[in-house]
């Protein structure tokens, strides 16, 4: 596969791998039958994402995307994190092969699901108008 050095670097040394003790939000996206599952955990303090972790079943692009997006959201406020698009993740990775762009969509969706989960837990209602780009599976699927 024709991956950028950045993708390979994140695949070789993924950041923020693992589960989180008592996370403030959890997002789970994808399913094994399409070959990708991402779980994202966030810690939030004063409306700012202070930590993020992930577990991913998937290809190198899925793993690199997960790693990159957890790096990108750390330190961002919830509104700022919500502005993160899969396109920005792809750019941060110096591009993805066309057939792999859907992995970055999963990453964006996993993050949004985690924020949705956090909001539900704290405000009782989830992300307004939450629409996941990847229509294969909803949160918690």
């Amino acid at each position, binding site marked *: *596969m024709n991956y950028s050095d950045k993708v*390979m670097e994140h*695949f*070789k040394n*993924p950041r923020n*791998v*693992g589960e989180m003790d008592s996370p403030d939000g959890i997002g*789970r996206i994808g399913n*094994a*039958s*399409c*070959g*990708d*599952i*991402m*779980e994202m955990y966030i810690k939030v303090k004063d409306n700012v994402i202070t930590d993020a972790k992930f*577990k*991913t*079943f*998937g*290809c*190198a*692009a*899925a*793993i690199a995307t997960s790693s990159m997006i957890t790096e990108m959201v750390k330190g961002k406020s919830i509104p700022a994190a919500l502005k993160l698009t899969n396109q920005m993740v792809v750019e941060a990775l110096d591009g993805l092969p066309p*057939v792999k762009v859907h992995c970055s969509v999963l990453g964006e969706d996993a993050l949004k699901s985690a924020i949705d989960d956090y909001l539900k837990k704290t405000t009782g209602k989830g992300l307004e108008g939450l629409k996941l780009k990847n229509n294969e599976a909803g949160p918690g699927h």
Partner: protein
Amino acid sequence: MKRIYLDNAATTPTLPSVLKEMLPYFSERYGNPSSLHSFGQEARAAVEAARARLAGLINCQPAEIIFTSGGTESDNAALFGVLYANKSKGDHIITSKIEHHAVLEPCQWLEKQGFKVTYLDVDKYGLVDPAAVKAAITDKTVLVSIMHANNEIGTIQPIEQISTITKEAGVLLHTDAVQTVGQIEVDVDKLGVDLLSLSAHKFYGPKGVGALYVRKGTRLEPYIRGGGQEKRRRASTENVPGIIGLGKAAEIAKAEINERVAHLLPLRDRLIKGILDNIPEVILNGHPVQRLPKNVNVSVKYIEGEAMLLKLDLEGIAASTGSACSSGTLDPSHVLLAIGLTHELAHGSIRFSLGRTNTDKDIDHVLEVFPKIVKKLRQMSPLYKK
């Protein structure tokens, strides 16, 4: 870093002795075999010598061999050529669900043109049941096409039993032997087939050249049309160096075939055993015994194939996977699904295919590196709960 090539089912290196025979036919003996002058005639003689060598490997007459551009063209030409040449006899093909796409896609195209295709199921080892072939034959059946051995899981089909049935029924039998020619014995008479596809680059010949064996008397419409080459059965200026390479690769294969099997079987079995013993929750795909000597295919639970493949590549080990992530489509290998694997297990498959120069040391290295890779990826997997 030493690189270990374990993807010999995808392609093999051209043997130096094969390349050596090809070389003069590029820039020195470059004549077109259809030309009447001496440049042409020396090329013609070389092509015919190569045809005889290949005939020697699969035990047929030289005139029964049509040179093609590879296994895919041979498969396309066999299906198309038999069905169109026998339109008056019938319109029905029987094949299996685990054929190579080079057979399945032409079948789908033929269906669009009004032909009928039966896709037989296989059992959990990937075996076609000869009784199912028999049951599927109707008075409209023209051709049965069942591969000799599967490229992904290595299962070898009972072609001899199937040919007993097709002969009785008066139906033609094609086999895609791309994965077996040069690897195990392939004798068209023992197999009892009427057509057989092969490809040079799968057994140490060059890429871009293959052949279709067509038993004498079998009606076949040409697929590539436009000139008198190959007795009007395949037009286009002959790929002379490629054909000579195929001939030489066939000659070497014939001499080495027993040695090749004897060399690979213990390596294959050690690798299978080593993986199954050292990594929990792994299953072997394909038949435990009726299996290509080069083929090892396992599914590793909880993790995905492309990730394994690339981790192995980073350690210098070249392998292959049936995961969808490697193919650019959303579906994993149709073969792995046909033998009953879940999508998850199909995505978690990895194939090692061994070759002439692999050694015990190579197996040692894989057995050292691979369990660690699996462990790391599992630690990252949300499906894996220790």
